[in-house]
């Protein structure tokens, strides 16, 4: 059952469309499910997008094209080259620009009749309620747990719908939270995973089309909420498996013991979400292990001197294909099983992309009795920066 979301405006709602707007939205207007009434609802609607990245790209484009009267864009990031593979709002010439500004320019070009407000700021417990209060629907296009819980809780506290989407590699999830009598994200997941159990960069990545599909589903749900049409993803978790090309659906129940939307909520104001997610404000990184290091310049000098060093590359084979330092490839995940391939009498320099995985490898090998082993500080990225710019960064 869909619920109409009434615009909460101070100003008088628009009661008509201009002739240009009628032409622009004619394919909506000739559908009885939208019509003039629905198009005016869209025109009077205010939607806040949290994140203008992979999910935010189709969201922004489709909601602007559909004529949602006011779009808010919250993002503190700047466009970089690695974004362009999936964040289709941005062009190559946007690299280096703030995302919220670049997205605003692109969406205004698509539809100059709508109002777009960009907030080049990080969403925090201090600003969320103030940012959300002027919008009817909040769309969660974030990519991290602290912001996800923050968006959820702020929506519950303000009684606003939260259109949720999430992606990982080839899989996506979507749902609508924060509706009266419907569940919230905390009903589904009361707590986030601890950082140590979050997949590492070796397992990360996302196929560029996936956020396009999941973000489009969020855009559709947002428009249905505004129109008050159809069945929304309330009480249902939509799962999408792009590799198997299958959609599945699971039942989501409102948890009466939910700490934020249950019958006796214990969370009545926004909390410190970094602490809640095990990411404490100013502390040094936790799981990173302290191991002996060598800088890229030192390594280069020693190799040039002709020192006999064994270079151990603990990345994955597909990463080795992107670029390598002609090291011996032995992925971190296989190290325990294949440790016999290494000669502990030789001096070894381990590296990965950024230095994190190889630090774990060095720590493991030291515990296994290897004494002459160093970690390449900053990994292949730092090697590219400091020694050989012809090595591509990824």
């Amino acid at each position, binding site marked *: 059952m869909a619920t109409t979301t009434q615009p909460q405006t101070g100003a008088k709602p628009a009661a008509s469309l201009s002739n240009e707007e009628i032409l622009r939205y004619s394919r909506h207007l000739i559908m009885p499910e939208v019509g003039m009434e629905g198009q005016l609802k869209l025109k009077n609607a205010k939607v806040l997008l949290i994140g203008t990245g992979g999910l935010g790209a189709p969201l922004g484009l489709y909601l602007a094209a559909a004529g949602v009267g006011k779009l808010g864009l919250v993002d503190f990031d700047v466009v*970089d080259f690695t974004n362009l593979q999936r964040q289709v709002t941005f062009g190559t010439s946007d690299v280096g620009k703030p995302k919220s500004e670049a997205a605003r320019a692109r969406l205004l070009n698509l539809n100059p009749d709508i109002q777009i407000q960009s907030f080049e700021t990080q969403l925090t417990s201090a600003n969320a309620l103030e940012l959300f209060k002027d919008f009817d629907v909040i769309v969660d296009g974030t990519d991290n*747990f602290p912001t*996800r819980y923050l968006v959820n809780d702020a929506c519950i506290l303000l009684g606003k719908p939260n259109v949720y989407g999430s992606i990982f590699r080839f899989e996506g999830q979507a749902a609508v939270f924060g509706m009266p009598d419907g569940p919230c994200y905390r009903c589904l*997941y*009361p707590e986030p995973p601890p950082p140590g*159990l979050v*997949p590492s960069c070796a397992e990360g990545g996302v196929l560029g089309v996936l*956020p396009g599909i999941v973000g489009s589903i969020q855009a559709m749900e947002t428009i249905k909420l505004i129109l008050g049409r159809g069945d929304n993803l309330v009480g249902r978790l939509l799962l999408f498996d792009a590799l198997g090309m299958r959609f599945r659906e699971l039942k989501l129940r409102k948890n009466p013991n939910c700490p934020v939307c249950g019958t006796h909520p214990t969370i009545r104001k926004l909390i410190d979400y970094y602490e809640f997610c095990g990411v404490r*404000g100013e*502390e040094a990184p936790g799981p990173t292990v302290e191991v002996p290091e060598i800088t890229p310049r030192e390594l280069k000098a020693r190799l040039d001197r002709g020192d006999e060093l064994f270079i151990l590359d603990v990345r994955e084979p597909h990463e080795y294909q992107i670029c390598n330092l002609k090291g011996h490839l032995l992925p971190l995940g296989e190290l325990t099983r294949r440790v016999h391939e290494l000669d502990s009498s030789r001096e070894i320099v381990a590296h990965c992309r950024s230095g994190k995985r190889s630090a774990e490898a060095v720590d493991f090998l030291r515990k296994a009795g290897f004494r002459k082993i160093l970690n390449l500080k900053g990994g292949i990225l730092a090697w590219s920066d400091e020694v050989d710019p012809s090595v591509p960064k990824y």
Partner: protein
Amino acid sequence: MPVKVMIPSPLRPYAGKRDSAEFSARTVGEALGHLTTEFAELRKHLFTEDGKLRSFVNVYVNDEDIRYLAKENTPTKDGDTISIIPSIAGGLHLEASFRALRQAGVNAERKPSSLLVLASRIGI
């Protein structure tokens, strides 16, 4: 016909890259027990040290959440599908931000240090 356990992609590296596995089991707990016996590395991702299912991992029998059935004692019958649904949050964006920051330097004041800590804590 046994019970099919669907393994989500974030957990596949700990399950021999399999996307599903089949076991004969009378309850959800039994099926997960077989699963974590066959793939020992999965255990710490699914269960706490005292053997309870982790709160950020949801388990469904067909389309029902076992928290609203009999939890791990939920009976299963041949042909049932057990789904493990962990919370996911795409991580590339943070990594990219982290890298952009390091390369550009100029935007450092824009990025709260907690984000950098987060970036390093999730392993980038």
